[in-house]
């Protein structure tokens, strides 16, 4: 990329950042809440994408890691009085461990079998959360009611005060940027290439010296950790956790987000998150009697129009517009076996 292009990118980035900072003060708190959910879903989808998009291991159970992260954070905040910002590393580590453990049996399973095993995980976790022996920790069927963190200082921009929702917006945005940065560093380099190699040509990859079992299990762990961080954030933003919030439908929704956003794409996660947050609401406005039928129709139409997700569409358009430039930065999309 030449110097003037680089300058453009930097200026564009700064403008974007400025817009993002002012945005929460332009809209009502409820909208800010929705933005927060979009960012949280984006992190969760990114996590799943690391596993499914880049590494080809399909997971229908990431809702379970989201739940573990959320409950982990909630229990710390409610039971141990840990401040909200300190719960995230704990959620990440906890979910890494569970994900890593799940990675071992996953080694032996492929395709449909892994999908089944992870789907069973998604169904089992809500039931485990209700188990009476740990009820004193998890609140059992009642869940845990939390308080939203208050902003640490007073501020007013454009006449709107810095409310709890707006404060959480900046906090979530900060975490989002960090998680995306981590993913970017990981996936753009050797690790990313190794993941893709494992996905597309596992036998060749191990012949080249990549330690498949360790790599795949760690990938599972990292993927779970990302989604767990998203769950931990949701505990503060929604201020309530209960087993009913984390049904198997959440896992399916996250997968929808990954595919709609684009497999093996980091920015695609945001597109996917926007889809899963807003399209159900849009469908509700279009049809009161069968909104989910509208949602399903949208899904299918999107798959026709952009089978490689939003990111795939963008890169197709981009390569059409600039046929001469060699795009050394686009990530390959492989097929899953």
């Amino acid at each position, binding site marked *: 990329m030449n110097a003037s292009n680089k300058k453009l990118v930097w200026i564009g980035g700064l403008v974007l950042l400025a817009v993002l900072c002012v945005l929460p003060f332009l809209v009502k708190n409820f909208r800010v809440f929705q933005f927060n959910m979009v960012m949280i879903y984006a992190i969760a989808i990114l996590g799943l994408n690391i596993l*499914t998009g880049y590494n080809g291991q*399909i997971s229908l159970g990431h809702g379970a890691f989201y739940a573990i992260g959320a409950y982990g954070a909630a229990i710390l905040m409610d039971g141990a009085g840990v401040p909200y910002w300190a719960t995230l590393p704990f959620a990440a580590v906890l979910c890494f461990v569970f994900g890593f453990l799940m990675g071992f*049996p996953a080694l*032996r*399973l*492929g*395709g*449909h*079998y892994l*999908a*089944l*095993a992870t*789907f*069973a*995980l998604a*169904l*089992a976790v809500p*039931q*485990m959360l*209700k*188990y*009476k022996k740990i009820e004193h920790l998890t609140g059992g069927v009642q869940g845990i009611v939390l308080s939203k963190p208050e902003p640490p200082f007073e501020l007013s921009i454009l006449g709107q005060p810095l409310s709890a929702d707006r404060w959480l917006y900046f906090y979530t945005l900060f975490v989002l940027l960090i998680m995306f940065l981590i993913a970017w560093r990981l996936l753009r380099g050797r690790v990313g290439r190794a993941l893709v190699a494992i996905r597309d040509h596992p*036998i*060749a990859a191990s012949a080249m010296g990549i330690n498949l079992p360790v790599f795949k299990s760690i990938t599972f762990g990292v993927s779970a950790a990302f989604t767990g961080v998203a769950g931990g954030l949701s505990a503060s933003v929604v201020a309530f956790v209960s087993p009913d919030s984390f049904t198997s439908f959440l896992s*399916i929704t996250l*997968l*929808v987000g*990954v*595919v*709609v956003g684009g*497999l093996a794409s980091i920015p695609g996660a945001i597109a996917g998150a926007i889809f899963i947050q807003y399209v159900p609401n849009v469908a509700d406005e279009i049809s009161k*009697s*069968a*909104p*989910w*039928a509208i*949602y*399903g*129709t*949208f*899904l*299918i139409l999107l*798959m*026709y129009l952009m*089978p*490689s997700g939003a990111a795939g569409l963008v890169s197709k358009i981009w390569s059409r517009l600039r046929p001469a430039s060699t795009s050394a930065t686009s990530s390959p*999309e492989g*097929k*899953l076996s």
Partner: protein
Amino acid sequence: MEAFLHQIFAGIANGGIYASVGLALVMIHQATHHINFAQGEMATFSTFIAWALINAGWPYWGAFFLTVAISFALGLIIQRTVLKPVEKAPVLTNVIVFVGLLVIFNAVAGWIFDHTIKSFPSPFPKGTFFETKYFSAHDIGSIGVTLVVLVALYCFFKFTPLGLAMRAAAQNPESARLVGVRVSWMLGMGWGLAAAIGAVAGMMVAPIVFLDPNMMGGILLYGFAAALLGGIDNPWGAVIGGFIVGVLENLLGAYVIGTELKLTVALVLIVGTLIVRPDGLFGKAVVTRV
């Protein structure tokens, strides 16, 4: 002892349900190499159609066979119209299309037929001659129906040219085309057959669990487990897998871990079995060339 036996028999009866759903999943996989997540909702929708026919005065078996025919046609049409555009797309794209279908069928069923549970008649009512103490007439009858479907499927795939053509189309579409198999139509027929089997499963299940739009939600996981435990390419495996899942579910819930962690135990079981036998209990290992 009697209670123990009773649990086993209740498990076999339930297992019949999982077996029939598993069979439909295996069917679709044999024909298309995909697992259709919308299978359950399509089966529920078919059962609603049968219910509507029966309510309109049709006799049971008339409604039964008409529903099977309609479901076949519906499956075929869906494959030819909705799935054709993504035939060449990656697997996950197809999965999302299935999710879309799942959601659409569920919502439309609820919209047309509303959400209150409905009772669905059984062709084997109380008092039929083969009723026993542990199995109701319907339990035995529905297991019988499942076995009949299984045998018919097996013979179809093994002994008929059409069945062979379908298997070829799924396993190696390029070569199949070269020998004159109309691959696209084979896929469509595969979907039609799977939808028909799903309809049969739905109509056998509904008298036990009652008909409502969410009827198949809980069953699909177990049907899925049955199909995979038995080996995804093996119809006999799916049926045996179904019975195993049914019995184990009951026994574990009653004697080992209690009802509060049944799903967790099911999870551990499934994962455990697949670790030991990654291709399912009766499946064939697939060897790929590097």
